[in-house]
């Protein structure tokens, strides 16, 4: 009986705080995506040769993010029936977009106007009980191309 009460309290806490956190996070993601829309992120390996030679540097962005207790419970139920696990889909979506945004932010601070050859790496760093995914780390990295004038002023080769 006591266990059941604890479970229900944890589920309620997870549901309440998790929803709040997710809503707030999506709001900030959308706002920042709008802000950095002009900074292009391109998954091509070679920058076009027509560009005047810019200076380049590696930029990275990473985030570790965790699901709440309620969603993990839902996902465990999903394991019984199969199908899309929406609660983890939104977790990974948030993590990727956040990582890309942090990378863009770093690039913008350096005065870059493009980021080339973006790679996204996902790792589940801590596994919870019964090998369920507890939290994921997403790393986004790429090469920021800085136009000559901006690169010279900030001292980067």
């Amino acid at each position, binding site marked *: 009986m006591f266990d059941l009460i604890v479970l229900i309290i944890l589920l309620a806490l997870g549901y309440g705080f998790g929803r709040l956190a997710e809503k707030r996070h999506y709001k900030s993601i959308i706002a920042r995506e709008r802000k950095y829309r002009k900074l292009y992120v391109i998954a091509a390996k070679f920058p076009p040769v027509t560009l005047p030679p810019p200076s380049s540097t590696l930029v990275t962005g990473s985030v570790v993010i965790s699901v709440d207790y309620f969603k993990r419970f839902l996902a465990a139920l999903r394991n019984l029936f199969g199908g899309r696990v929406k609660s983890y889909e939104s977790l990974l979506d948030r993590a990727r977009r956040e990582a890309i945004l942090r990378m863009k932010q770093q690039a913008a601070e350096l005065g870059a106007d493009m980021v080339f050859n973006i790679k996204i790496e996902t790792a589940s760093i801590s596994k*919870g009980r019964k090998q369920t995914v507890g939290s994921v780390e997403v790393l986004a990295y790429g090469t920021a191309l800085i136009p000559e004038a901006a690169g010279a002023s900030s001292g980067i080769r």
Partner: protein
Amino acid sequence: MLITNLEIVPGKRVVKHLGLVQGSSVRAKHVGRDIMASLKNIFGGELKGYTELLQESREEAMNRMQQQAQSVGANAVLNIRFSTSSVAQGAAELFAYGTAVVLE
């Protein structure tokens, strides 16, 4: 030292290839962070402590890679890749590797 994950450097020519250089670092979190993280596992959200920890250890891996590149006489590392793996409960390995080259 120039570090990039492109295979070429715009506007510069590669004079000499020096082969693969790599750096890695394995870090564990301390108990305080673990407790915070397990709380966050109930509420959900970003684990700031872990983000910082992984960033630090990634920088260390990159530093080691740069040292290796310097010791073979390179002045740039191209085509960098990162990889993360959790080797044990509570510890993660961060690995960075790339091609050391001499640019003109």
